[in-house]
């Protein structure tokens, strides 16, 4: 399996690369061929060398997805390295914290450039390769695409747009044999959320709000991404799979009719 993973230097992207490498190894066939893309050059090189140590064929492509020409270069790098492509994991994302009144135009546009537009441009560039292989696309959205999450106005809106973009792809490219899905992480401990979840008090509060009473791991998201990307999901397209420990079932978390208050 030849796959592109963006945002692969850390968090969910990194965990997905390892998951795909290990899934391929446990199937006993050819090692996974993974093109790792990220802006963080040093961490990217480290992930690549760890993957190679596990027997995967890992290539790196340092890229800044705010540049509209970058996605096509990432796909071209994968094409050169592997000669084809079976899967695209469009995972790179940024989170900006600002209320809608304080949000700058530049930050708004940066959120949409990376969280939304990059997936379209990556997928568009990868379309001929994926049509040839009957491959699939998984993009990382967010629980914030479903629920307003102050102060993440631009983030939430860009992720909501991403989900509809991928559903649109599912309809347009289904006849070409390309499946297109999203995974929406809930609370997940990654570099992006480390400030919050490495604080024991905030971590405990987030866990208590969650039906499964835990904060998720990047590996939880990676397992869902790998499932949707691979052949086990052959008849699944156009879905968004929330991987949130049930957080989205909590209409009134931790107050009102929350569990602790029941007689």
């Amino acid at each position, binding site marked *: 399996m030849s796959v592109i993973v963006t945002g692969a230097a850390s968090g969910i992207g990194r965990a997905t690369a390892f998951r795909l490498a290990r899934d391929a190894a446990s199937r006993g066939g050819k090692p996974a061929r993974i093109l790792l893309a990220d802006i963080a050059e040093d961490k990217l090189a480290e992930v690549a060398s760890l993957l190679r140590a596990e027997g995967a064929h890992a290539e790196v492509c340092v890229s800044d997805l705010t540049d509209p020409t970058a996605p096509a270069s990432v796909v071209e790098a994968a094409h050169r390295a592997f000669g084809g492509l079976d899967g695209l994991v469009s995972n790179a994302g940024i989170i900006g914290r600002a209320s809608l009144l304080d949000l700058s135009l530049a930050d708004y546009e940066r959120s949409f450039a990376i969280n939304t537009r990059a997936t379209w441009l990556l997928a568009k560039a990868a379309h001929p390769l994926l049509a040839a292989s009957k491959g699939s696309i998984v993009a990382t959205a967010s629980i914030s695409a479903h629920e307003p999450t102050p102060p993440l106005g631009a983030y939430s809106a860009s992720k909501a747009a991403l989900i509809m973009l991928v*559903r649109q792809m*599912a*309809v347009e*490219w*289904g*006849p070409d*044999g390309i*499946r297109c899905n999203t995974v929406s992480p*809930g609370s997940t401990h990654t570099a992006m959320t480390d400030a919050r979840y490495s604080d024991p008090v905030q971590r405990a509060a987030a866990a208590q709000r*969650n*039906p*499964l*009473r*835990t904060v*998720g*791991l990047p590996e*939880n*998201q990676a*397992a*869902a991404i790998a*499932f949707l990307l691979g052949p*086990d*999901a*052959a*008849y*699944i*397209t*156009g*879905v968004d*799979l*929330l*991987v*949130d*420990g*049930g957080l*989205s*079932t*909590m209409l009134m978390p931790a107050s009102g009719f929350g*569990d602790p208050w029941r007689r």
Partner: protein
Amino acid sequence: MAFTYRSRRESAETLERELAARCRTAAIHADLLDEESVGSALRTVRERFGAVDSVIFATGANILQPYVSEISAQQWDEVVQVELIGFTRVLRAALPLMRAQGGGTIVAIGSFATYSFPPGDALSAVPKAAIEMLCRAVAREEGRYGIRANVVAPGIINAGLGEQFQQQLFAPEVWEGQRKRVPLRRFGEAEEVAEAVAFLASKRSAYITGQTLVVDGGLRV
């Protein structure tokens, strides 16, 4: 792996023989209309296998496709008793066992009709929508005990009732039209639904609960 049957004993025994080469298995009689029968089936599974790690609720009543205006209270009652109340009987038996053993997973088969309704399917779809809500309730209430509950919602599938409908209901041109509406341009296979069920029953979905995974080739979209 244990599975239950009500009336089709021969099919159950055939399946038992087929599975025996791959795993320890047991075909157990259970009637979803009878709480004691369901409870006894679950206890038998625990006694034989030591635990009930996952329960897959795949029961569906074999029903016609009447419009809502034509459905009698008795017809509603029959399907609701078997599917919805039947599922609550399974939950009443399974949840205490799962709590006591420190967790478990529940996967129910729903329907894409909850999201993209085909006229005539209410008798099938309405109890399925209720089952979906029940799974979300279980996800919320039982998560703290390590119990997860999710739904797989199949689209048009070349197996079971789907296959029967394709042969008996509507002209071939109608089915051809439906097939063209599916973004993947084909109907699904039972195995493709099964993979989604296996995913949600396994630890690969350890952080997924209260969700519905639609397996429909994109028809709903």
